[in-house]
């Protein structure tokens, strides 16, 4: 039972990270119809920034906030400088740019900080944090931080005029212009926010997977899977999808271990986690192409 709860807790912690990165993907997808393949590498780069600040002596949370702010500026800049000229370009050109960005961030990080794996601290004190034996301090911290960030984003999009303008711009850019919304800036802002959320995911996961330029590769796949499971055009669904994928992959591996223990036959284990995640995606998309929470927008003509 205790082992089950531990697996559940670690699933939730991983899920929180997938959820954050999935949300970053969805934020860009809903306004541009593109999946930013470089989202993971941008998050990795931001994580290195926070590591660099800490190694220069900055406090963890100072480095955290500075890296998130840096990511925002980085996201806005990438959109304005690199993607803006491509607004009317064919999809393939944009995909090539995303892949280029992915390679650039990866190799620049490698060149500056080397490919050696670095350990990354956790800000959460072990003693008075977490529930002994069930959920570790860092896991609980990851879930909390992610939920706070997601909550802030929800409030921003739901209750502020700027958030409303961004949603309008994403939904119907032409009409948004006709009510005076500067759609191009809304896109750039969306990129900034997505990069910031990605940075939170990167910094939170670095303590678990350690810091290296390839740390986000697998996580981006999970995030993509989460976004698809939840519904690629539904931010809330992407978050739920993140937690579902995170918990489910651990549960499947846990069940596999139990079966092996009981019968001695190895069917499935930790090694097949990613496979399991991708099978989930295929099954969900076959049964419900819009994702679990993706609703088909009602439209009367």
């Amino acid at each position, binding site marked *: 039972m205790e082992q089950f709860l531990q697996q559940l807790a670690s699933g939730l912690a991983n899920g929180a990270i997938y959820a954050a990165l999935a949300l970053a993907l969805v934020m860009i997808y809903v306004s541009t119809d593109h999946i930013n393949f470089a989202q993971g590498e941008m998050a990795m780069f931001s994580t290195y920034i926070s590591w660099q600040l800490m190694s220069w002596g900055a406090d963890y949370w100072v480095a955290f906030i500075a890296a998130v702010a840096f990511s925002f500026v980085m996201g806005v800049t990438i959109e304005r400088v690199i993607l803006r000229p491509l607004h009317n370009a064919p999809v393939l050109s944009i995909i090539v740019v995303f892949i280029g960005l992915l390679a650039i961030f990866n190799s620049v990080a490698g060149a500056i900080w080397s490919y050696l794996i670095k350990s990354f601290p956790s800000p959460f004190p072990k003693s008075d944090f977490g529930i002994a034996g069930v959920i570790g301090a860092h896991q609980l911290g990851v879930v909390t931080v992610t939920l706070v960030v997601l909550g802030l984003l929800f409030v921003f999009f739901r209750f502020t005029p700027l958030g409303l303008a961004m949603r309008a711009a994403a939904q*119907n850019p032409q009409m948004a212009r006709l009510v005076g919304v500067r759609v191009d800036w809304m896109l750039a802002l969306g990129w900034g926010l997505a990069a910031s959320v990605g940075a939170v995911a990167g910094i939170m996961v670095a303590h678990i997977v350690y810091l290296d330029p390839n740390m986000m590769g697998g996580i981006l796949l999970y995030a993509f899977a989460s976004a698809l499971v939840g519904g690629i055009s539904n931010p809330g669904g992407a978050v739920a999808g993140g937690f579902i994928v995170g918990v489910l992959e651990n549960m499947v591996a846990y069940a596999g271990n139990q079966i092996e223990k009981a019968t001695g036959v190895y069917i499935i284990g930790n090694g097949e986690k990613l496979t399991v995640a991708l099978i989930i995606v295929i099954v969900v998309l076959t049964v419900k192409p819009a994702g679990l929470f993706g609703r088909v927008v009602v439209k009367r003509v």
Partner: protein
Amino acid sequence: MAALLEVKELKAFYGQTQSLYDIGFDIPLGGITTLLGANGAGKTTTLRAICNMIRTEGTVRFDGKEIGGMATEEIVRLSIAHVPEGRGTFTSLTVDENLRVAAYTRKDKPAVRADLERILGYFPILKERLQQQAGTLSGGEQQMLAIARALMLKPRLMLLDEPSFGLAPLIVQEIFRIMRRINIEEKVSMLLVEQNAALALDLASHAYVLETGKIVMSGPSSVVKSDENIRKSYLGY
């Protein structure tokens, strides 16, 4: 009367294809002007050209200020509201959000609330639907929403692209009645594009007739209405 909007030698292009040829007209302050024409004559294109949503050449002056090269969102911010073809509903937002997003650019935030109440007074049905997803409204309700949303911009000029499109005659009459009230009570000048020439000529004081991208006739509505060619081609009797 001074012209609120002056258009001179306006040309418009879709890609390589030219679809407006040196169009010129004036919209008087406070009045309703209509632009008539058959399918493909260039009515919608003219409205789009005014807001610089397509490639244009020529002069467009609003309140004496040249707005030719400005971005669409900047033109709108000068208080020109465009109620587009197809109504431009933000389908996944609520009715309330559709209305509030139009006040996004306004500086006088305290007045917005009172304006919303007053505007809903013209369209009581929208008041009942405030929290509903706008995509679930009927066609007539969406047209009302589009006009109400345009009003939230606090416009001085409203460009209306076929508000009668696809609606039942009774609804059309109601919407046209409301438009007349808005013109008078809100002091909004209007440029109305219509295929329903009879209705448009009743509402507008001045009319221009477009044919394949050129203005072929203009004058007070009463004169245009009694012109024999117009009567035969557009009024059908």
